[in-house]
């Protein structure tokens, strides 16, 4: 194990290929590895959503070659009901855990947090390396469930007990499939705990000279707050998964109640608590939503500031708002359980903090809008995606008003309204944050620029496409369209099928737009224009170092920080931006008074 010290250079530059690119201790390589994993996971997740959308629009359409994935799940290339649910569960799990958690947090955070704090590396590089490789193993354990006898689990990414805990009598994939799922998630939790440990310690202990906490850029704050949330949330999900696995393999009764009858057989379990799983899961699950979105808020603020050529109206207010979101996220998890048989008084108790959480969210949005006023906005792929994030966050946020109220939740719970809400606010918004970060930092990460024309085309198609997919979801929900149905056979749902067809077409088009991004990413990696050290005229530490950064981030000389992070358009300054490392004296800096 590595020596837990950081004052000396953490580790020398590796020479062998394996230590350089595979089992690397370098946070930058680990960040790129996380990014690659998230990209792979996102492509798989997107392909799954295509299959589901085609099935929902045209239920009898045979998708060529689908039987190769599972001959029993898709006989004649048409999805069976169970396989639809199995793909849906995998889509949700892959997207939430292996894309939305890894990309904005683990990938970008790993690459840029140490650089932005002025550190040579994370304090525990071996833990950092393990964090990635553990997550990697977790991913393949999950993917492996596609290839076991009954296929993956069909219980949904929330895996409500007792369906998830009774074993294969519950349906295809509920035996080994669930065990693999829970194992994968428990492994994933371990990986993220290692990661959070490093992130928190980096932020607290590894800052360079002059880098006070308030001098950290908003991205670093986003990652720091997220890692605190991750530390507490994943530490709760892991024991929940362990108990779930024990219910399967050891015959315990944590989640399975007495006298349950399936196929006319009384199950051998007794006394377990159905709601226990929901409490444990949502105690993790709601902070998880913010784990996905808070790094995006940081990235978007950072990108916007650089492209607006002015700082946010208030640096501190944004930080406090993000922290308030994090704290409140633990007090509101019960709003997922309004109609789940919980004490109706608790529903009201959970409802108020849920409504209160709109206040910090509104403040964040108002800070973005207010800062946009009077700016010198540059339009490029990165800033477009950041502005798109703001739009999506608003749209996804206002539907939260409805779901926060138990009385309206009676109508909208478990309908497409909820699906639309969380896809906009957590899925699309977080994805836009990832895209903004990618277009913004790609030059620093690879040394080459991305193609702007393709980037803008990618943006406008994704923006319109995402609204065409997810806005109609809300209407479907208002009409009472239940989620997690593989076909709509109910009399009142049949008239809604044309809407589903429209959504399917929109989803296919939007999906293809993402292939433009993949092409742009790969093409620019090898053929893009060479990037300068500071292509966007940014001020934070990642722009003070070489492109791409050397092994220990800053070469021979460690940076010294003289200013708050966002000194743009400072009156009387020599340029429209002053880097944090510039010793230039400023008469009236953009700082908190």
């Amino acid at each position, binding site marked *: 194990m590595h020596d837990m010290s950081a004052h000396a250079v953490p580790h020398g530059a590796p020479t062998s290929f394996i230590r350089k690119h595979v089992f690397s201790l370098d946070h930058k390589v680990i960040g790129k590895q996380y990014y690659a994993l998230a990209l792979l996971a996102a492509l798989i997740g997107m392909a799954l959503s295509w299959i589901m959308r085609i099935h929902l629009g045209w239920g009898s359409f045979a998708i060529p070659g689908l039987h190769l994935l599972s001959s029993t799940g898709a006989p004649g290339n048409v999805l069976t009901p169970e396989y639809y649910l199995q793909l849906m569960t995998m889509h949700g799990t892959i997207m939430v855990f292996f894309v939305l958690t890894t990309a904005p947090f683990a990938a970008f955070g790993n690459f840029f947090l140490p650089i932005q704090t002025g550190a040579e590396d994370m304090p525990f590089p071996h833990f950092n390396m393990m964090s990635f490789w553990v997550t990697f193993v977790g991913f393949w354990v999950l993917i492996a469930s596609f290839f076991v006898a009954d296929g993956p689990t069909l219980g949904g990414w929330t895996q409500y007990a007792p369906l998830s805990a009774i074993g294969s009598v519950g349906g295809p994939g509920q035996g080994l499939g669930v065990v693999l799922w829970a194992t994968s998630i428990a492994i994933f939790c371990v990986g993220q705990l290692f990661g959070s*440990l490093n992130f928190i310690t980096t932020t*607290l202990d590894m800052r360079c000279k*002059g880098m006070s906490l308030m001098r950290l850029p908003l991205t670093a704050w986003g990652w720091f707050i997220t890692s605190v949330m991750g530390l507490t949330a994943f530490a709760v999900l892991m024991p929940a998964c362990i108990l779930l696995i024990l219910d399967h393999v050891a015959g315990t009764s944590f989640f399975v109640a007495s006298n349950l009858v399936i196929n006319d057989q009384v199950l051998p379990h*007794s006394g377990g608590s159905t709601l226990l799983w929901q*409490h444990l899961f949502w105690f993790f699950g709601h902070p998880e939503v913010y784990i996905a979105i808070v790094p995006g808020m940081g990235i978007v603020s950072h990108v916007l500031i650089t492209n607006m050529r002015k700082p946010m109206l208030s640096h501190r207010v944004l930080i406090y708002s993000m922290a308030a979101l994090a704290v409140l996220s633990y007090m509101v998890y019960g709003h997922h359980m309004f109609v789940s048989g919980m004490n109706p008084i608790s529903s009201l108790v959970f409802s108020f903090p849920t409504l209160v959480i709109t206040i910090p969210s509104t403040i964040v949005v108002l800070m973005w809008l207010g800062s946009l006023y009077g700016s010198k906005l540059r339009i490029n792929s990165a800033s477009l995606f950041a502005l798109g994030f703001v739009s999506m966050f608003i749209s996804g946020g206002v539907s939260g008003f409805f779901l926060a109220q138990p009385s309206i939740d009676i109508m909208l719970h478990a309908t497409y309204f909820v699906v639309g809400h969380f896809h906009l606010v957590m899925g699309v918004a977080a994805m836009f944050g990832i895209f903004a970060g990618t277009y913004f930092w790609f030059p620093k990460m690879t040394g080459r620029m991305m193609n702007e024309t393709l980037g803008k085309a990618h943006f406008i198609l994704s923006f319109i496409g995402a609204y065409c997919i997810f806005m109609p979801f809300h209407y479907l929900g208002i009409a009472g369209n239940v989620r997690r149905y593989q076909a709509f056979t109910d009399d009142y749902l049949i008239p809604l099928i044309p809407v589903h067809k429209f959504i399917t077409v929109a989803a296919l088009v939007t999906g293809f737009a993402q292939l433009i991004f993949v092409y742009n990413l790969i093409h620019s990696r090898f053929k893009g224009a060479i990037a300068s050290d500071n292509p966007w005229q940014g001020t934070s530490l990642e722009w003070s170092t070489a492109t791409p950064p050397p092994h220990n981030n800053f070469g021979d000389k460690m940076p010294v920080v003289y200013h708050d992070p966002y000194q743009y358009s400072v009156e009387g300054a020599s340029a429209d931006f002053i880097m944090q490392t510039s010793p230039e004296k400023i008469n009236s800096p953009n*700082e908190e008074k």
Partner: protein
Amino acid sequence: MATTVHEPPKHDLERLPSQGSGNGGWRNLVPADGDLPRVKDHAPPPASTGIWVGLAAITMTFAAFTSALVVRQGAAPDWQHITLPSILYFNTLLIIASSVTLEISRRRVAAFMGGIKDRAANPARWLYITLALGVLFVAGQTFAWVQLKSQGFGLATNVSYSFFYVLTVAHALHLLGGLGGLVRVIAKLHNSVLRRSTLDATSRYWHFMGVLWVYLLFLLWMKL
């Protein structure tokens, strides 16, 4: 025993050895005008921050187990009272004793690093004793599991036993991590590359395991 202790040079020599190294402030004491000479660099070694972060995560995990136990107990009337194997109380004495021996060892190393050489006699011996007590504790826990199992009380016999096994095994697994840390500290001490922050972090972890065990014992005694 020819062990020497080596500590890299420190910036703030005025710190007392008994305080350990976790008492540093943050690096954010920066005047807004960028007046660097007034900046005090008090960042603690990452190991001492890291260990608190790690302990926070472990605390959350056991808090989740505890709340699961409370909720599950209230969910159904099938909760059984079980008599804890009496060896657990003996094990408790072992783990408390191991904390004491580790603390003695830590103080000796600290004293040595602080320059008070005559009190530094054989810190490694106390580390070995701690290690032995830790191994004995795990052996004792294993004995308790085997004993219960031989009486016919398995993991799935009743939910009380399920929680008993889950909590004690989870604690033992975490304790094994602590034993690994102790082995590492001993190895470093022999190679004269031990940092005080490493020893401090390991001993905090170890003490925490002791506190956690006492808490778990109390919880099991009260609830089961």
